[in-house]
């Protein structure tokens, strides 16, 4: 078997990619438990464009999708049309682009690193020969990547497109063929059309590429000029959107530069004082991406970002390898790999630190440098011949096996119960029950009290867009013109007065051992 693997060099990466796909696709329909607001919004808009040629607000084939008071970028939604056409309107189809992107990132990281190695010295090539496959393996099993590949996250797709772009550029650098450069700039543009963080990361990368084109004379001036025009043209709609009134909505929603971010003792009396204070807030946000708590423990991020209450974004066993890898990487006289990995490691947080930080989703691209550094650390420690290091390494491997097993055990057995409330399991159940009642009885209307059941509209659209419920607040009362009509009223559980004309039909609970009530179905 080992002989077969040695003879067929594609076998190890094939195994790693299959492993990555399996870890991302296994039970993805039910785990995470239910589709949360952004997922149903992406899924419904894809379905709506596929079926009606319009988004949920009736705009025909839009480039920006209005949702929850902001505008979503189009990349993920248009990519989701094909899975929805094939698999139907369900959680699997909504999450499929993310699953596929998470898997392909593993493959393209391998190809990218393989290509980068060809630029290195013979010594380093030999020393780092297993880094591409090891990095791909680390990326395949890292909780950070698994968690964001199993939910419909635009960031996962953008990271994949960006990695493909980097790989294509490495091909261009090697072969100096312009089509590779055209594709590089196209994939980088796709990434920025997919996720907001890349609207900052892509221009930085593209500028670096153009700087290299000039500095290293990789192409003729005529070609560089044509490429610059091409880049502007493909990014023009995005630039107009970004600098238009809608483009800043997301920035203002997530920016770290708010007065609340300032310490209580600081009350800027002038714009200069404010500027100085905010520059320190920015430095703090930047540093937060290197916090060990954030990386290895469950920190103060969004709970949906974690695969378990016991795990952060990296495994604990990876910490010594991360340290070792960083030391080796800084020490090595590498021509390309060192510069690229360190650049991604520093530029990513520098770009996303303008938003509330730390945010592991904004900084998802960091999985790339972390995977490579950990892989370098593992390889460097394997090569040390000291007995105590070998013993420690064996111990680390045993602990790694235990920790990885615990991770998947927690994910498969605890996650559904502990996290269903944060995902959309309840909304799915509500929409299904409302459909059942609507079909079995002759209700005139469905009325939903959205005071405690926010964003229900998009869930009802996704699960059954024929229902068309009316959304009201708690002060709503049945209008006299509906006096003799039967109404289905859905609200957050509260006591039903005995003297009222309300008839409690059912209280929907979460499918967890605690059975938390989430909604009441009342006949008015």
């Amino acid at each position, binding site marked *: 078997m080992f002989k077969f693997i040695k003879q067929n060099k594609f076998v190890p990466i094939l195994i790693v990619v299959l492993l990555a796909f399996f870890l991302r696709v296994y039970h993805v329909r039910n785990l995470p438990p239910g589709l949360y607001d952004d997922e149903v919004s992406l899924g419904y808009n894809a379905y709506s464009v596929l079926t009606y040629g319009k988004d949920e607000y009736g705009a025909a084939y839009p480039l920006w999708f209005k949702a929850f008071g902001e505008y979503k970028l189009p990349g993920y939604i248009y990519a989701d049309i094909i899975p929805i056409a094939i698999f139907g309107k369900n959680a699997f189809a909504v999450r499929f682009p993310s699953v596929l992107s998470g898997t392909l990132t593993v493959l393209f990281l391998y190809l990218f690193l393989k290509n980068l190695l060809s630029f290195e010295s013979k010594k380093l090539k030999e020393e780092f020969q297993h880094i591409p496959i090891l990095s791909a393996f680390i990326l395949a099993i890292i909780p950070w990547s698994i968690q964001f590949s199993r939910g419909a996250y635009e960031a996962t797709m953008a990271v994949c497109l960006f990695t493909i772009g980097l790989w294509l550029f490495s091909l261009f650098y090697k072969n100096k063929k312009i089509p590779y450069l055209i594709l590089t700039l196209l994939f980088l543009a796709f990434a920025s059309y997919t996720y907001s963080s890349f609207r900052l990361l892509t221009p930085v990368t593209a500028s670096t590429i153009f700087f290299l084109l000039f500095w290293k004379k990789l192409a003729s001036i005529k070609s560089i000029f044509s490429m610059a025009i091409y880049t502007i043209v493909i990014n023009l709609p995005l630039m107009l959107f970004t600098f238009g009134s809608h483009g800043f909505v997301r920035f203002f929603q997530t920016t770290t530069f708010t007065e609340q971010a300032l310490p209580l003792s600081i009350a800027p009396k002038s714009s200069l004082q404010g500027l100085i*204070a905010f520059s*320190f807030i920015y430095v703090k946000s930047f540093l937060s991406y290197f916090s*060990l*708590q954030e990386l290895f423990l469950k920190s103060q991020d969004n709970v949906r970002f974690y695969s378990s209450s016991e795990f952060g974004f990296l495994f604990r066993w990876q910490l010594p390898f991360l340290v*070792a890898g960083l030391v080796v990487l800084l020490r090595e006289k590498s021509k390309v790999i060192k510069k690229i990995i360190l650049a991604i490691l520093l530029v990513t947080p520098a770009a996303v630190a303008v938003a509330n930080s730390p945010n592991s989703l904004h900084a998802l691209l960091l999985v790339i440098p972390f995977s490579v550094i950990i892989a370098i650390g593992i390889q460097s420690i394997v090569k040390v011949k000291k007995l105590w290091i070998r013993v420690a390494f064996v111990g680390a491997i045993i602990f790694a096996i*235990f920790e990885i097993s615990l991770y998947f*055990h927690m994910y498969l*057995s605890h996650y559904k*119960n502990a996290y269903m409330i944060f995902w959309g399991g309840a909304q799915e159940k509500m929409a299904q029950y409302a459909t059942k009642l609507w079909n079995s009885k002759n209700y005139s209307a469905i009325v939903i009290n959205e005071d405690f059941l926010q964003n229900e509209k998009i869930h009802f659209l996704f699960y059954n867009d024929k229902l068309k419920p009316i959304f009201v607040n708690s002060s709503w009362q049945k209008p006299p013109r509906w006096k003799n009509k039967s109404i289905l009223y859905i609200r957050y559980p509260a006591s039903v007065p005995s003297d009222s004309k309300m008839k409690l039909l059912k209280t929907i609970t979460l499918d967890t051992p605690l059975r938390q009530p989430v909604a009441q179905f009342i006949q008015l």
Partner: protein
Amino acid sequence: MKLRYVIFILLIFLFGYLLRSDLKCVNYNGDFHYSSVVVSFHLKELIATEEQTPLFFVRFFHNRITVSAFDIFARYIQFFNIFYLVNILGLAGLFGFLHFYYQFFAKEIKNKLIKILAVLVLLSPFLEIFQLIGKTFSLKMLILIIPYQIASLAGFFYFSKREKYIWLTTYLILLMLSIGWIVVFGNELLSFCTTS
């Protein structure tokens, strides 16, 4: 006077100021301390969610050894939390500290005493995790903060010995940023310790 000496003296002043403001602390907060009660509670919490899992797996995954080990790990990394380090070393000191450990792990430190210091800084947090250092915070500072600062100074020493003028200027800028950090955020170590 050489720039490196100016920076060295400024660093000592910075550390002195930080130490002085740290004296407001009485003890490290609970995040730094191992507690068997917390571990037992957490263990019970984990087991409670394992209704249908075979007993062997429940015992294999959720036992006192693993939960304690994870808990100790969580406490240990508090001592290397980037913001904790910024508060005891300042931004410039953090840079020196990281450089010191880079030198240590890259095996570029030859002096045995400095090597011992590096190992001590890595091991000393365990004394506080298991609350073996008494209750006086000044003693804790002597064991848990001052060695970090010495390591940072050593890092700067190694750094300034070999590096170019431009890097020393960077260090000077970091020193100014450290002062700015203190002005903007004040003494944030108070969020890592108890004051009464």
